[in-house]
């Protein structure tokens, strides 16, 4: 591959990676920290994309729409976690299989619900920054990818600050490591986890908005993103926020390179995240920065 094409693929991969990190942060909290087998996370994200589309059709800027959706999704997340906890985590043995099956069923319901509500065709949004490109040297960087990467970096920063500076944020990190210590501090672990899951779901809403900014969405998109988000979270190491960024970059660049490679290209690209996932699981399951 000629050098400038390689370079362009890498740069694009970095931008893509920031995006993947942003869409995976929600899962990093719900699965990485809280150990919830949340295979429905990408489906909720796509739900967020469609809600964004509905708001954007009324003239609202898509990223803003994502932010507007966050409170509602926060409440949704809290409700889902409460239900999950009461039904499964409390009961112990065999809850593992049923818990996983529950989220699988949820993902199915969301995906088919979207098909029934919106049809299988792709939906897109329009904004000032969609369709334009920024020229840097010989490279054309799509504006929308830049915007999304920017939001991603901001989101990661805000979340990391929240986790380290606020009481609730620190409680969330603590509950992942030592529940009994948290109880001694006077905090209720279930409430903390519920709050965290709410945050993760709110983040998923914003991720969904970014999803539809970056490209058209259809109800089946969650299937590709299961691979991407879990690959990022596992590669990062469960519970590591900063690891999510590094892992996102690894995935983004890998996918971009495969996409640009002359013999491989688009028919192999969807498998990259899944292959990466398997490699990480086989070689270093605790990921880069795992606890």
């Amino acid at each position: 591959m000629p050098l400038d094409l390689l370079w362009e693929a890498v740069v694009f991969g970095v931008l893509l990676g920031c995006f993947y990190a942003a869409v995976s942060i929600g899962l990093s909290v719900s699965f990485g920290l809280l150990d919830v087998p949340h295979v429905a996370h990408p489906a909720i994200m796509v739900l967020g994309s469609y809600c964004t589309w509905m708001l954007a059709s009324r003239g609202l800027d898509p990223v803003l729409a994502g932010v507007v959706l966050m409170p509602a999704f926060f409440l949704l997340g809290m409700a889902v976690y409460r239900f999950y906890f009461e039904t499964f985590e409390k009961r112990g043995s065999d809850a593992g299989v049923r818990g996983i099956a529950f989220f699988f069923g949820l993902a199915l319901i969301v995906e088919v619900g979207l098909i029934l509500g919106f049809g299988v065709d792709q939906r897109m949004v329009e904004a000032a920054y969609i369709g334009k490109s920024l020229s840097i040297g010989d490279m054309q960087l799509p504006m929308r990818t830049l915007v999304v990467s920017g939001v991603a970096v901001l989101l990661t920063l805000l979340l990391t600050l929240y986790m380290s500076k606020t009481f609730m944020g620190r409680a969330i990190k603590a509950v992942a490591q030592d529940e009994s210590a948290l109880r001694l501090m006077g905090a209720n672990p279930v409430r903390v986890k519920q709050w965290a899951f709410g945050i993760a779901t709110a983040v998923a809403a914003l991720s969904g908005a970014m999803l539809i900014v970056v490209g058209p969405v259809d109800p089946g998109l969650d299937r590709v993103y299961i691979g991407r988000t879990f690959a990022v979270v596992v590669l990062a190491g469960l519970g590591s926020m900063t690891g999510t960024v590094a892992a996102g970059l690894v995935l983004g660049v890998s996918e971009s390179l495969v996409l640009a490679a002359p013999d491989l290209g688009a028919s192999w690209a969807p498998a990259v995240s899944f292959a990466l996932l398997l490699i990480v699981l086989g070689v270093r399951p605790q990921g880069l920065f795992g606890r």
Partner: protein
Amino acid sequence: MRFWIGAGVAVLAAVAMAALVKYEYFFFAGYTVLMFIVLATAWNILGGYAGYVNFGTPAFFGLGAYTAAVIYKATAAPLVLQIAAAALTAGLLGLLAGVLTLRLRGIFFAIATIALTVIMQTVFINWRFAGGATGLQLLRPAPIAPFESYIKMLFVVMALMAVASIALARYIERSWLGRGLRAIRDSEEAAEASGVPTLKLKLFACCVCGALMGAAGAPMPMYLSYIEPESTFNLNYAIGALASPMIGGTATWAGPVIGAFVLSSLQQIITVTISNEMNVLVVGVLLVVFVVAAPEGILGLFKRWLGPSSK
């Protein structure tokens, strides 16, 4: 003993149907139900007995189907050999999945199976000998006497496979193997302390599950005279294999069978009268409802309805 009598009756009934029934659709529906019985039974060995959720039924099923197709294309091998080869490759894939992830928590195994499905599909999309993205046309050989149509023969083959897989599941369930798997599911630590070689047993369950799913996929290319990646690796197989035992009941071999019957029938009715999407929605809702409210499945509800005196 009653089981074997029942099994014999079932096989004879299948043969009789093949001889007497003229209605084509019957064999199409019947083949599908029997196939899902095999898939659900296989799934339950790993999911119900050992407690490991497999999302990747299409990976094993599809690998089995493609193995059969490729072997047939290359060597015109008979169906029996195709099925054996399919079971072998899919069993090995199961072993691979297990080796990669069974030391970790169950959710990692589950996600790895999703990854395998996508990777398998991608491999076959890009393999020209197997037809690539457009698929492969296959010419069926003549059916083996006394069968007059190949479809009817496949129907009986699938009936035999269903009985065989149920017999295998039943044997595992009642034997020391089943106890070991259940011990692993209930408390892996206590199982190890009681001498159960947990990793080996889990790998065994993975292999058996994969092999049975591959075998179930093997007659597919012959059935359709055609194979292509998108429909072969279809999500519906994953849904059917998982939802059937979870709705029917995971504790014994009968649960997946009941679940497969119920879901296949529902699928036929809803898909034909409303839409395929509605069918998936109904299955999804049923899955969530049963998992939440009736964890022992239809079989469990039945037992409770019959009263505590029944075993």
